[in-house]
């Protein structure tokens, strides 16, 4: 009756996890394809290119050479429009400034809260003043730079990696547990001699395998398509990614510990993740939020992970340079894991 071919239960559990995941087409899309599409889409939309000259609507051009100078200047794009049409274009953002010529001087109409409007006003004024005979007393020299790691894609890629690690850990662990509970699979396991620790560890190991894939896919994709580079060391990057994924696994274990149906699991998953999608600076810097919010935002696990990833990617930091971010991730993951172990329901 005894069977020498039986495998180690932990190895079998990990294999089962991996197989289940690989056979779930939806998961493959969200974990591997979706972040690449995001990177392509946003990377193209916000690719760096020389700024376009300001767009100017001229309601009536100044007479003679002054008007010709404005129309022919390469520093502005001029369109002649009646006043009503010009104002509509301004309101819709099609032009940045309107020039109304009334002898002997122009009126500039622009949105003072819009950077482009303000700079357009200065450029068009400079063109007119020089054409009218102004001589600049100074001749400045210009030095332009293009540092690696300062483009939007360099900012975005670590953000996408952080989001991806959060999403796959949350859905892959917590949601999966809730589904297994709902199907009464957890209680089926609970009446076997399977060790509880093996079961939970299998999630850790299977996540680690996919984590390695997700990370190399996104880093490799960024390098190939957008030329992003990791300025810090890969060991720190991998270690931080593992810590981040483990931290989110702990949080999602907490959701998976008790929730009994997939609808409320869905709700909890979104409740936890959506605020961080917005607040944690994955797509734009959280510095844009009011100062008093920065502290709470930095205490969020996704902020800590994304800040840490950016420091490694773009500032060449190593894991040892990251202090508060590591603490935040450890506390979230550790507390989640410990509370989940105490409250976990097999039925």
């Amino acid at each position, binding site marked *: 009756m005894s069977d020498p071919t039986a495998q180690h239960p932990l190895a079998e559990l990990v*294999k089962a996890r991996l197989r289940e995941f690989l056979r779930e087409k939806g998961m493959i899309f969200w974990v591997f394809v979706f972040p690449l599409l995001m990177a392509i889409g946003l990377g193209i939309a916000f690719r760096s290119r020389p700024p376009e000259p300001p767009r100017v609507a001229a309601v009536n051009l100044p007479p003679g050479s002054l008007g010709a100078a404005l129309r022919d200047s390469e520093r502005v794009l001029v369109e002649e429009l009646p006043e009503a049409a010009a104002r509509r274009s301004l309101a819709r953002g099609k032009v940045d400034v309107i020039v109304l010529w009334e002898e002997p001087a122009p009126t500039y109409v622009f949105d003072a809260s819009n950077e482009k409007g303000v700079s357009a006003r200065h450029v068009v004024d400079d063109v007119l003043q020089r054409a009218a005979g102004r001589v600049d007393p100074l001749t400045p020299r210009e030095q332009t730079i293009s540092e690696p790691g300062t483009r939007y894609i360099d900012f975005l890629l670590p953000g996408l990696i952080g989001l991806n690690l959060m999403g796959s850990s949350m859905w892959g662990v917590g949601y999966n547990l809730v589904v297994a509970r709902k199907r009464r699979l957890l209680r089926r396991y609970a009446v076997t001699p399977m*060790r509880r620790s093996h079961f939970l560890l299998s999630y850790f190991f299977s996540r680690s395998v996919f984590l390695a894939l997700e990370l190399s896919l996104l880093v490799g994709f960024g390098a190939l398509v957008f030329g992003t580079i990791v300025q810090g060391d890969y060991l720190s990057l991998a270690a931080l990614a593992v810590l981040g994924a483990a931290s989110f696994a702990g949080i999602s274990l907490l959701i998976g510990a008790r929730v009994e149906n997939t609808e409320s699991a869905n709700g909890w998953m979104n409740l936890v993740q959506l605020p961080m999608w917005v607040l944690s600076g994955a797509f734009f810097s959280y510095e844009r939020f009011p100062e008093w919010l920065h502290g709470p935002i930095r205490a969020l696990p996704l902020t800590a992970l994304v800040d840490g990833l950016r420091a490694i990617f773009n500032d060449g930091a190593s894991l040892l340079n990251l202090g508060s971010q590591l603490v935040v991730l450890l506390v979230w993951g550790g507390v989640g894991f410990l509370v989940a172990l105490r409250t976990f329901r097999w039925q």
Partner: protein
Amino acid sequence: MTSPSSSPAVRASASADSNAPAIECQALVKHYGSKVAVAGIDLVVQRGQCFGLLGPNGAGKTTTVEMLEGLHPPTSGTIRIFGARWGEGRDQWIRERFGVQLQDTQLADKLTVEEVLTLFRSFYATGRSVSELLALLDLEEERRQQFSRLSGGQKQRVAIATALAGAPDLLFLDEPTTGLDPRARQTLWGVVEAFRSAGGTVLLTTHYMEEAATLCDELAVMDQGRIIARGSPRALIDSLGEVQFVDFESPQTPDSAALLALPAVHAVDRRGARYRLRIERSLRALTAVLEELERQGVTPIGLSTHQATLDDVFLHLTGRGLSHE
């Protein structure tokens, strides 16, 4: 998550309990809040027995079985499985010795039959090989099919195969054939009988009386959290006395009171145009009933008689469906 290890050495040390019954429970009670699911039951299942728990839905059968399996702690009472109690450091040893088929469990959808069995086999220190399990449950053709694509009967066979993966001494089967077609039911009965003839012990819940009569040597009937009758299937049937049943349909309405007035008639049960009479087990009693029907001008259609079955015992005990006594 502290579970003692389950090495073969631990299992061997069980010899001290080698004479203990497979299952023994005393004064078992389970409350869910103010609801009483199990109201104090005593059970002994000897090794090698097939013991059946019968009862309507909500009688407390599943709660009882799940307490025996160690899934829920009882509110009060004691449970011993092969002499060992839950929560006293031998939980893993107990789990090594039984196999379980739970009601309504869906195994991992995306795994194949073979993968599911390999996984379950890996949980046990000793057990059957996967190919042995596939052969036993006639699943060889489905071995590479994903669980979600199996039919109900195939899924149930996989569930039983997982229960047998650890070569258990004791099998818990909770309504194993509910929803299965007769052929699939016969197949599973064959598996249970083979398990028993190899010395295994079975605790089975069912609401198919035929299943209980075929498989079990001892039965307990549960209702509202209590055991209201127990004994062998034969003894339970005999407890109804020397009776037989007469079934017929009739377009006319017979006079029930006049029928009941006959000394040989114990009960008249009516459902629409269908009648079932419980009468004395004798030709004389049957003749008296037929003569009375003729006297009333009633023409019985599809008249048949049958000896008492467990169904009749169940109806008699729970009072459901019998309008006159």
